């Protein structure tokens, strides 16, 4: 049950109501105050104060001041009138309830409206900002375009000027050429001069340069003849034989392909080497014995029967034919273990592990075996720490294997035992 705050005091003017509410020690924040047009509530659990006001107030402009253990409300009346009392008298429970709910709803609506208004203004601001930046960028772009355009026009003008000069030069030269031809024919000279005069008028630029170039042209005719004579005879025919850079591939050399090509050549060389090295001995072998897979199966069978040396031989031959199969090394390691060739067993398991990269679930099984075999070999050589390392690696791959766990434990004990004793 809330504790009602009833020791409020109020006074009024024509336009406003001043309400003072002592708080009895409770601390108030703006969240505790709820106010709508005709309903005022202050709820600071466990205290509660509510008032259904006599007449509607303007709740947006009204204020509440919190301080000194007191809330001081300044409520502006909607209609200037003097109230008989702060609250509505003879308000029954239902009416109160209704008013309360109404008030809450109204407040909610107002809140919604406010958020929407805020959203709209925010959007408008954003749009404005965007437009402003666009305008700036546009201005910048235009400025650059203008610069370019100016440059272009300047350059075009220069070009026109140059071109006109060229044209004049050309026309001038053609006229002079004609003139030279006619100079030799005396009687026609006068008529030609008349013609020259007529054609001279439109060419203002040309006429100025004419006297100078006439001299130049006549010189050039002579010099042309001289030059013709001075041209050497055509070279005596000869052939130069050309060799191209030697290349293995028929395609032309491309720098970006060099790495690929090197790799390909390397692989080819290796394959060839393998085939060549075995040629002499393999002649007496049957066809199936040249197949590494078949040899591996043979080796497995011999291992099962206990013929470890035979198995090793089979595996050796298989490795010579194809040294990239990890299972061959794995199985050979097992044979060496049985034969107590511990170093060879370690080597083979290591080689098998190398070939079993990348570590994927597919070769989990094989890797576990490789680690176990290598671990066993280490332990038999009394290199217990290395052995333990391998066993732990095996456990990591396959944590559910009890045998490996047991063996790993045994090794740990052994290590601790030796440490204690030494």
């Amino acid at each position: 049950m809330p504790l009602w705050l009833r020791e409020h005091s109020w006074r009024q003017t024509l336009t406003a109501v001043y309400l003072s509410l002592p708080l009895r020690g409770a601390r108030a924040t703006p969240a505790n105050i709820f106010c709508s047009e005709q309903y005022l509530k202050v709820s600071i659990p466990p205290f509660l104060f509510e008032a259904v006001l006599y007449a509607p107030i303007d709740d947006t402009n009204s204020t509440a001041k919190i301080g000194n253990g007191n809330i001081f409300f300044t409520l502006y009346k909607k209609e200037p009138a003097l109230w008989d009392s702060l609250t509505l008298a003879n308000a029954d429970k239902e009416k109160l309830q209704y008013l309360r709910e109404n008030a809450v709803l109204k407040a909610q609506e107002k809140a919604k409206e406010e958020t929407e208004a805020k959203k709209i203004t925010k959007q408008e601001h954003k749009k404005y900002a965007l437009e402003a930046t666009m305008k700036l960028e546009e201005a910048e772009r235009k400025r650059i375009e203008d610069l370019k355009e100016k440059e272009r026009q300047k350059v075009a003008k220069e070009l026109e000027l140059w071109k006109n000069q060229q044209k004049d030069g050309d026309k001038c030269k053609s006229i002079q050429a004609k003139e030279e031809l006619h100079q030799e024919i005396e009687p026609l000279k006068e008529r030609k001069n008349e013609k020259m005069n007529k054609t001279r008028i439109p060419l203002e630029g040309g006429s100025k340069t004419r006297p100078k170039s006439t001299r130049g042209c006549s010189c050039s005719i002579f010099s042309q003849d001289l030059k013709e004579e001075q041209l050497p005879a055509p070279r005596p025919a000869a052939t130069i034989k050309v060799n191209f850079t030697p290349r293995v591939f028929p395609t032309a050399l491309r720098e970006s392909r060099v790495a690929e090509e090197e790799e390909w050549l390397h692989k080819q060389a290796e394959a060839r080497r393998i085939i060549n090295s075995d040629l002499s001995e393999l002649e007496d072998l049957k066809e199936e014995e040249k197949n590494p897979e078949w040899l591996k199966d043979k080796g497995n069978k011999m291992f099962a029967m206990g013929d470890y040396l035979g198995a090793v031989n089979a595996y050796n031959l298989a490795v010579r034919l194809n040294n990239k199969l990890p299972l061959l090394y794995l199985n050979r390691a097992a044979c060496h273990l049985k034969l107590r060739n511990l170093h060879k067993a370690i080597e083979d398991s290591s080689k098998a592990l190398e070939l079993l990269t990348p570590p994927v679930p597919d070769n989990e099984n094989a890797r576990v075996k490789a680690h176990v075999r290598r671990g066993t070999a280490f332990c038999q050589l009394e290199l217990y720490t290395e052995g333990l390392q391998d066993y732990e690696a095996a456990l990591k791959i396959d944590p559910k294997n009890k045998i490996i766990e047991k063996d790993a434990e045994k090794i740990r004990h052994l290590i601790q035992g030796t440490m204690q004793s030494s």
Partner: protein
Amino acid sequence: MSAVLGPERPQVVSHVQQALSYTVFDCKWVPRSARLLCLGSAARGTGVVQLYELHGARLELLREIEKPKPIKCGTFGATSLQQRYLATGDFDGNLNIWNLEAPEIPVYSVKGHKEIINSIDGVGGLGIGEGAPEIVTGSRDGTVKVWDPRQNDTPVANMEPVQGESKRDCWTVAFGNAYNQEERVVCAGYDNGDIKLFDLKTMSLRWETNIKNGVCSVEFDRKDINMNKLVATSLEGKFHVFDMRTQHPTKGFASVSEKAQKSTIWQVRHLPQNRDIFMTSGGSGSLHLWKYEYPAQRSKKDSEGSEMGVAGSLSLLQNVTLSTQPISSLDWSPDKKGLCVCGAFDQTVRVLIVTKLNKI
């Protein structure tokens, strides 16, 4: 690699763009004029030669000539300024020299090669250099042949693979070292990365090297001087600049290489007015303008006492992307500094102006 500062950098301005209805393989300025030629192959398998004139902001078609075989390359290098005959190599291996005023019958014609002529160069004409006018053609049949327009049917020099050797396509040829009447070299680049330098005076192989990627384009910085620099561009975005002044007996010429664009560098062209500036065009439709800076000492002595060249450094002046297709041909105008034309495989030819080259 040093960079030129912002506002002073040369700008590449695209002046005119002309869409063509055929694939353009080569574009060349007609010397001493504002006219340019486009050579290519029409869709129906015939060769096209178009002559345009630059009029303000557009190109005006002056003349169109159709030939039975598609034309791959052309040069004005071996003709005199008065005649201005065009030498072309076509897809069938024919070398023809045309008078553009009367293009029906070629002035000179020979079936020089068994396969397409990939590249052509001319020297001795246009008032540049001295000596006999000669044309060199490099073809897909692996041979490089030098022709004299005054001698019919047989080449004056023939660089062919040794009997029995598998041939490699010759992709590019260039003349150089033509500083007097006797001296001349031909540089040829092949699709397997071989670059071979043939000396025509002694008729021998002077130098060869392999740059590990097919050589798309070689050019000397000037044809008519003692050979100074050679730029060789290749596939996979790399190009090499060789310093040709000092040849070491075993190491050959010193070089600096740059990997600029991720794609093939199709062409390199030196600015006729400044031999240390050149432009490379790439398979991604971009053009890069480079400047070569000489080292403090161009040659030094190695441990045995023989002279060895020292390569300089390159700086990128500007780069611009004009097209999405490779720009396969590029030509600077010999008359106006900075004016150049480029033809790309998107069937457009563009006239560009490079500004501020005077300040370099």
